[in-house]
């Protein structure tokens, strides 16, 4: 499904701000893998997702989706393969446009956009049904501007937009980090449901160790631009936070000194 082969990326090369963000990342996801990604600040989690999405070109290495090398494609040409939800709820949707217009734009991801009407009549019923499943009352506000919605509602819309046209790979970049705990739980639950129902392959970055353990069938941990742990199958099912911390110390040779992660280890 997804293959990342020896990907390197350095930011601000040759300046005092030089930062080696990815140092030879290798990762293979199988069809239907739901893989959570954890690691401290600056470990390279979001950078990995951005490398896949093509926010900038990598320095070297290959990224393949279904065997097709996408590493030379610009961001908008990779979009047909990917569904993305961002950390900032403002990023994924157009505030000035209606909910239904946002969904219609997402539904045409990867298609040629011509001069036919932007939202067709038959689409409305379909979107209404999809929104009703979310149980957020959004199905009755389809012609409201997205800017009027709360962060959680916007994130739910973004999630629907990311999956409205089945992506080969769903990228969730700390998509619940900016939400309050209750809303975060709801959005996570929605993500789980959508991934399971559509049998999606997904990568989810999170700072919450508990979430990383509970969700998905696979877990990778990053540190200093490398993947240092890759846990799946039975081992993942039986994982605990304490066990994970222990494994991190063993793999990286250092104690996990990241307040945000340690603080969020308990549910």
């Amino acid at each position, binding site marked *: 499904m997804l293959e990342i082969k020896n990907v390197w990326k350095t930011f601000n090369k040759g300046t005092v701000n030089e930062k080696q963000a990815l140092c030879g990342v290798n990762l293979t996801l199988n069809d239907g893998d739901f893989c959570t990604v954890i690691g401290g600040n600056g470990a390279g989690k979001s950078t990995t997702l951005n490398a896949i999405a093509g926010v900038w070109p990598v320095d070297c290495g290959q990224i393949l989706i279904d065997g097709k090398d996408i590493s030379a494609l610009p961001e908008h040409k990779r979009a047909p393969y990917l569904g993305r939800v961002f950390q900032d709820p403002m990023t994924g949707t157009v505030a000035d*446009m209606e909910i239904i217009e946002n969904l219609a734009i997402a539904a045409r991801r990867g298609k040629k956009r011509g001069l036919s009407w932007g939202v067709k009549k038959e689409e409305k019923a379909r979107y209404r049904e999809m929104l009703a499943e979310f149980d957020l009352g959004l199905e009755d506000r389809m012609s409201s501007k997205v800017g009027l919605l709360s962060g959680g509602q916007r994130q739910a819309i973004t999630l629907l937009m990311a999956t409205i046209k089945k992506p080969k790979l769903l990228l969730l970049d700390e998509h619940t980090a900016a939400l309050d705990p209750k809303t975060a739980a709801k959005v996570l639950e929605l993500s789980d449901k959508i991934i399971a129902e559509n049998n999606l392959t997904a990568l989810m970055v999170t700072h919450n160790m508990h979430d990383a353990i509970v969700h998905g069938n696979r877990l990778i941990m990053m540190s200093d631009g490398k993947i240092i742990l890759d846990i799946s199958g039975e081992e993942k099912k039986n994982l605990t936070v304490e066990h994970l911390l222990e494994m991190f110390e063993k793999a990286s040779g250092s104690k996990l000194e990241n307040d945000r992660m340690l603080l969020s280890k308990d549910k």
Partner: protein
Amino acid sequence: MDFLAEYFGSLNPLSFLSALPGNIAQGIIWGLMGLGVFLTFKLLNFADLSVDGSFATGGAVTAVMLINGCPVWATIIVAILAGLAAGLVTGLLHTLLGIPDILAGILTQIALYSINLNIMGKSNLPISYRNYTLVVSASNINMAILVGLGICAIVIAAMYWYFGTEQGSTIRATGSNPAMSKAQGININFTKVIALALSNGLVALSGSLFAQYQGFADINMGRGAIVIGLAAVIIGEVLGEAIFRKHMNFIIRMLFVIVGGILYYIAMGIVLWLKMPTDDTKLFTAIIVAIFLAVPYLQKKRKTSFKKVAKMNAKNAQKEG
């Protein structure tokens, strides 16, 4: 005090009224230009200054072609095409060469000054209604108003349709959220170039009509056009929001750009009627636009500000004390 009485005595209300239709006609033509500015400034979120050049280009193309015996409709079409090309250049400077939006516009604008001179051959070309068949002319103001409104209706209808299509939606998305647009597979460089080209095409159409209306094309006719276009957009927006509040839809927003253009020219008519020196008209333009740009900000501030908090707290303290 005598001089004041003398000054007000010299103002003739009838002369203001007689100038009114002319102001309205000019306002409509500039309102079209405002729609071009609306497209880039509001929808694409791109401050495009090339319009000062492309407005004059529209006038220059029409004048030269008329003088060379072309029918007026053909001159208008070629003027629009020339404007499209000018917008294309700004778009390519910005997207291919990474030049910031305002600078890209300024570069095109300054280049167009020379190009317009080359098109015209000299700095001023008369195209009197006596010698040519024109679409609009100051010699028949009522007709000019009607024709102007007709063209506005066509342009607004076309814009309403286009920005409702799949492609038009991508331009709106690009202006509002480029990161989302890219994630949804929209080539934002493409949408920016298209929008800039369409905007400048519209501005050139307005320039062509304005040259016909005033009976000549002039190399300086576009100077400060961006400010007048902005005036139309901002005046229209402030007024439209005051009247329609939450019911402002896309069509009303565009209609109010035309209304904004007309009001701007009526305001200028008042300024001239008050016998202010004509040398200062640009100064008045700047003042009018500054006022309308400031209104939404000041309104918001009136509702909530630090000063208000201080006042309220002082009041409460007084009550308790």
